């Protein structure tokens, strides 16, 4: 694909992509990479500095910080990715239905999306956690519930744009079935759009989930999660500020790699998309986008 080669040219973006891939692999095979069990307590090693055995030192219970970081990839990154994939899948399905068939289905779906989007996302996530109780699964459920509408909205626009192209009209005219057209002709071209919006949500979701864990609403002790590790470090922040470093830097690195990749993807795809990251910007785009001056020489 063109996009991939264009991203390949951007060296920094390629590095980011490799970094994220490495993080994902490390997370999936955490037991292979982690030098110790993440929940193994060694009271005699409390707050130990880094050593050959424990590269990043030990936390307030003497647990290996590096191992906890590696196991923390699972809830902090992998599960977020799963929740993201589910809501993108829902959004894509509904967006395709609305954008391809238009008519009543479109009108109803878009009304529902309007209502969903007029709720403040963060508050609704809190509300869902409020009903279901604290816990990682509940936050993930809340994410899926709150994010699909936003994806459906954008994917619908993208699909509509491709449904109007000549080759799709042609495929319709020669009697290709709707499902086939969607899978063979529209999905491949709208995939970059989908990649851009999902990647731009990925970073903010990681930040949010670590924030909820930090508040004690997410994963419960003793499981390792980056926000949770920061929460534990916060208790001893004034005497041992260095404990804040490792998980904080891990989050910053992953999120900035994702954000950078997402930006690179957007620019590779279409510079005009630069500003369409935030939903309340609809108007900003309407104002900023201008009709292209036509020259017919």
């Amino acid at each position, binding site marked *: 694909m063109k996009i991939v080669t264009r991203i390949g040219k951007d060296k920094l973006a390629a590095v980011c992509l490799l970094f994220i891939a490495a993080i994902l692999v490390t997370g999936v095979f955490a037991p292979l990479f982690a030098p110790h069990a993440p929940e193994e307590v060694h009271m005699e090693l409390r707050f130990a500095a880094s050593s050959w055995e424990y590269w990043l030192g030990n936390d307030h219970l003497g647990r290996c910080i590096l191992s906890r970081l590696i196991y923390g990839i699972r809830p902090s990154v992998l599960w977020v990715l799963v929740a993201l994939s589910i809501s993108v899948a829902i959004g894509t399905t509904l967006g395709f239905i609305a954008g391809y068939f238009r008519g009543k289905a479109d009108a109803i779906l878009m009304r529902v999306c309007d209502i969903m989007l007029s709720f403040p996302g963060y508050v609704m996530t809190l509300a869902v956690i409020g009903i279901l109780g604290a816990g990682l699964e509940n936050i993930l459920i809340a994410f899926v519930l709150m994010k699909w509408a936003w994806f459906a909205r954008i994917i619908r626009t993208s699909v509509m744009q491709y449904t109007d192209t000549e080759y799709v009209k042609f495929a319709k005219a020669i009697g290709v079935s709707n499902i086939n057209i969607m899978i063979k002709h529209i999905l491949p071209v709208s995939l970059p759009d989908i990649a851009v919006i999902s990647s731009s949500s990925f970073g903010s979701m990681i930040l949010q989930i670590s924030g909820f864990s930090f508040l004690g609403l997410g994963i419960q002790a003793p499981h390792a999660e980056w926000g949770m590790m920061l929460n534990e470090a916060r208790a001893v922040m004034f005497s041992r500020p260095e404990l804040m470093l490792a998980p904080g830097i891990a989050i910053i690195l992953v999120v900035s790699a994702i954000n950078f990749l997402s930006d690179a993807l957007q620019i590779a795809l279409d510079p005009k998309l630069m500003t369409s990251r935030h939903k309340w910007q609809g108007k900003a785009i309407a104002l900023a986008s*201008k009709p292209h001056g*036509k*020259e017919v*020489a």
Partner: protein
Amino acid sequence: MNSLEVSNLKIWDSRTGKVLVPHSSFHVKQRSCLAIVGESGSGKSLTCRAIMRLNKALLHQSGEILLQGVNLTKLSEKEMRKKRGKQLCMIVQNGMRAFDPSCVVGVHLKETLAWHYGWGRDDITVKMKRAMESVMLKDPLAIMNSYPHQLSGGMLQRVMIALAIVLEPDVVIADEPTTALDTITQFEVIEQFIQLRTRMNCAMIFVSHDLAVVKRIADEMLVMKDGAIVERGATRDIFSAAQHEYTRFLVSTGLTLDHHFNKIMGGVSHAEC
């Protein structure tokens, strides 16, 4: 006497080093009209903006541009600003986008005239009103109090012409002034350009890709292709005996357009120029 003389104008992209316009030289005589013809991307607009020194910062230019004997390329930005508008007036392609969409049209007119001449509000209104009436704009006061989106492209184009009339520049540069208009409005606006020429002592550079329009208005023309000038001469000669292959191609395709234009306008004579 030459109003404007451009010699060895070269424009290039400072990032890529790509030359967009290599060594252009041409001049415009006082009271005459030079048309620059060519397809989009041929460097017409770049040339116009280079004369105004208004190309993007990334685009660099070299060469000499003499306006009434003054070398514009040597002027400071501040001195150049005084030339713009007052001596060198530009009319842009799309009237609908030429005015700040959040202000009424009059704001721009007042700002410009107050800046150059220091006139008061009432003075400006009187002068603008007269000029706008002369370009067949009805109810000038209402137009000055309207937002750009409330007016049509043709009206805004004529507002720009009216402003040029009040500014009394030495050279008017019209960059595709009729492209964004429908055929009938185009005809009316061209009419005003012809009037502008006869009424004022200014020289005019008229950029277009519409040969029918060029044939009506221009005394001399340049044909540009990929940044270079491929043909130049009196309009009449070029239409009858083009030297360059590309010009012949343009003329042959342009004539069909011309016939179309004729048909729509009910066979209005083109022989005014």
